[in-house]
């Protein structure tokens, strides 16, 4: 129990006898702006199964009505509540308080972007990058015939919830501030499914190389480690794009094939048919 006796502690003292004293948890939350901010310690009553977002919202409702935090779904589906817990990007709604038992809990905003206030950073740059990516384009008319085996590998990149935690952790952005030259892992994930979609006939490889700067990635895999939906960003998105860029630029035969075929890839069954010569 704290000395300053905040509301949670008072609630604890008033708890019915047979419950025993209510357990509380302390959180150190970044308060303030980019220019002027510091961590402040709060204490809240612990509830069963509580996630860090619950604790933050409880502090907001009971102690600090202007504490800024983003959230929507509370179920790890929307990617709004990303922040840094003890220096690692996390979804606040998916991080159980009890995981940090015996440790201090420090909650900070994403640091690869300008901090607006408290746990909220200005992520608008990501939407600018997104706008610059050539959208899905197909000359064929839906409904498409595409088989599960043609699209299987697209489900993974399409799971992205745009939490931007991979962007936060990538040193090219976070340490080297190459926001002008580098789109970041999230957008290689997007480029990857677009490039591999069997019905898409847009060419993005030049952009991936020149504008999005895929070459700046040195495959540290930090992005993959933090992705909350388990996208293997480095292995399944970035490396294949790097390979395609290499092929495109250094293998004129492949380049010619693409130009002739129009679409970038055939469905597996088309490929099978081509192999069998019909």
């Amino acid at each position, binding site marked *: 129990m704290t000395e300053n006796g905040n509301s949670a502690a008072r609630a604890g003292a008033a708890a019915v006898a047979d419950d025993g004293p209510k357990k509380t948890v302390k959180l150190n939350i970044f308060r303030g702006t980019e220019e002027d901010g510091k961590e402040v310690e709060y204490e809240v009553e612990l509830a069963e199964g509580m996630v860090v977002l619950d604790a933050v919202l409880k502090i907001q*409702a*009971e102690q600090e009505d202007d504490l800024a935090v983003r959230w929507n779904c509370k179920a790890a589906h*929307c990617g709004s509540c990303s922040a840094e817990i003890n220096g690692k990007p996390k979804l606040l709604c998916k991080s159980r308080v009890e995981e940090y038992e015996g440790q201090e809990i420090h909650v900070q905003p994403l640091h690869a972007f300008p901090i*607006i206030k408290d746990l909220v950073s200005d992520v608008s740059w990501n*939407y600018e990058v997104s706008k610059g990516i050539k959208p899905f384009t197909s000359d064929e008319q839906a409904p498409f015939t595409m088989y599960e085996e043609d*699209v299987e590998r*697209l489900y993974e990149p399409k799971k992205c919830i745009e939490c931007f935690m991979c962007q936060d952790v990538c040193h090219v952005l976070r340490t080297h501030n190459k926001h002008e030259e580098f789109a970041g892992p999230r957008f290689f994930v997007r480029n990857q499914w677009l490039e591999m979609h069997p019905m898409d006939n847009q060419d993005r490889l030049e952009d991936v190389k020149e504008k999005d700067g895929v070459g700046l990635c040195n495959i540290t895999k930090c992005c993959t480690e933090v992705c909350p939906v388990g996208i293997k960003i480095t292995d399944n998105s970035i490396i294949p794009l790097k390979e395609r860029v290499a092929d495109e630029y250094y293998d004129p035969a492949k380049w010619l094939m693409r130009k002739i075929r129009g679409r970038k890839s055939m469905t597996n069954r088309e490929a099978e048919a081509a192999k069998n010569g019909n």
Partner: protein
Amino acid sequence: METNGSRNRENFEVREHDVLIIGAGGAGMRAAVEAAGKGLSVGIVTKSLLGKAHTVMAEGGMAAAIGNVDPEDSWRQHFIDTMKGGKFINNWRMAEIHAKESPDRAYELEQWGALFNRTPEGKISQRPFGAHTYRRLAHVGDRTGLELIRTMQEKVLATDTKVYMETTVTKLLQDASGRVVGALAYTRENGKFIHYKAKAVVMATGGWGRIFKVTSNSWEGTGDGAILAYDIGAEMVDMEMVQFHPTGMVWPPGVRGLLVTEGVRGEGGVLKNSEGKRYMGDYDPERMELSSRDVVARANFSEVQAGRGSEHGGVYLDITHLGYEGIMQKLPTMHEQFLKLADVDIAKEPMEVFPTIHYTMGGIKVEPEHCATTVPGLFAAGECSGGLHGANRLGGNSLSDLLVFGRRAGIGAVEYVEQNTHGTDIPEADVQTEIRRVLDPMERTKSDKDESPYLLQSELQDVMMEHANLVRDEDALKEGLGKILAIKDRVPNVKVGGNRLFNPGWHTAQDIKYLVQVSELIVRCAIERKEKRGSQWRLDHDELVDEYGSINFITKKGPQGEVEIERREIPPMPGHLSELLDESAKGAKV
């Protein structure tokens, strides 16, 4: 552009668009794409970041009678299912349009890059869902909403639409003749005011699940759009109709109300009580777990009432028969959600579930063809509008609704703009008055009457849980109404600290008036509808009453600010539709 205010005047920005869209869920974005595609200048405003609206949370799928899995399916059967599910008080023309156009909207999504699960023939796969006669829901695992919203978001970003993220509209602005010519808003980041001038406005702000404590909705679902429209005289339809989804999470407390997708039952999940009995046979032996949501919600509620509930006061939902592999293919998100948040491995043990407030069928009344409201210049689509779903919405019918009527609202707005040459000016005094009102909770001096917006919201949620929940009766509703009106009187006392910089307390202070007003409308209509129909379950009138089957309750703001309620006859259905319902009543599938 910048209008510099002098003393006593607040600065505000002016932004002009042909069409202003309020809300960037599926409905708003589909409307934006339509209007921008016609070359109009379009602005779209959203309270959160792009791609985070409720639409992203939809799991189960989008209903469209494309007949890929069950070729017998047709728009006719989809129409019948929707009308039956809505207990026949739906707007039949909307139900017809919806059933006919959903397939094209699903194909259109695919054309724009959305990826649905496939059938062995390489077509869009479809899964069964409650009260849909055939397997009808296009889906991708249990994250269909994410696919829909991301596709629409990328489509919107590919147009010239101007997106205003984290911006809250607080008022619709009207010219002297009463037509809507814009809106006032502020940015959440720093509290800058924006006066949007627009020739037409499309409302697409979603529902109001947040009036209840246990809900699947996020902080955004506070009914802003419905009440902004109501406040300027728009008619509302069947506001008493609030959907209780049969399966929300119950434990741990922090996740109470989070949705467990109907996809679980679609994939064969069974409901059991604490005695291990599969009880749906007692409530709907034919459709069992795949009965309509109102029926399953009542069943789950009744089992717990009868003392056959689970450890934490729910019932059991068991999907273990699918096995780990099957679950990871069909319901991966659910697996993760339960494992991470509730320590339950749904491949090995059942989930605990209980009804949660999920969706609002009632809403702004619109004309079915192009979603015009009863106020000129204002259109509405998606969950904030009413009519399509009647007394109960079928699962999957919302995602299709968003696209079908989002598109039509866009067309309506475009036509309206083309046919009208009115100006969009309003007196600056109107803007200043509204700005003062919005700033009041922050700038007013402290007093001992001050109230916290969070606690007032929470108090209202408790009242709605107690008095206007799944089971209702006249006495409880009337008592609830008294409490709501008492809270309404306290709304002006809401006071917050901090400044304009990203201040959630201040933002929450804006929402409370919508929550209270929408609650009042719901309770008043629930008192009037003395029967059991769809989601309206009156214990003191525990049966379907024919008389109510042919009327909608229309609410409107009266001259003194009071709520006017009118019983309005539903216009007779044309022969080609009533024949379908007659056939179906005889047991035929059409």
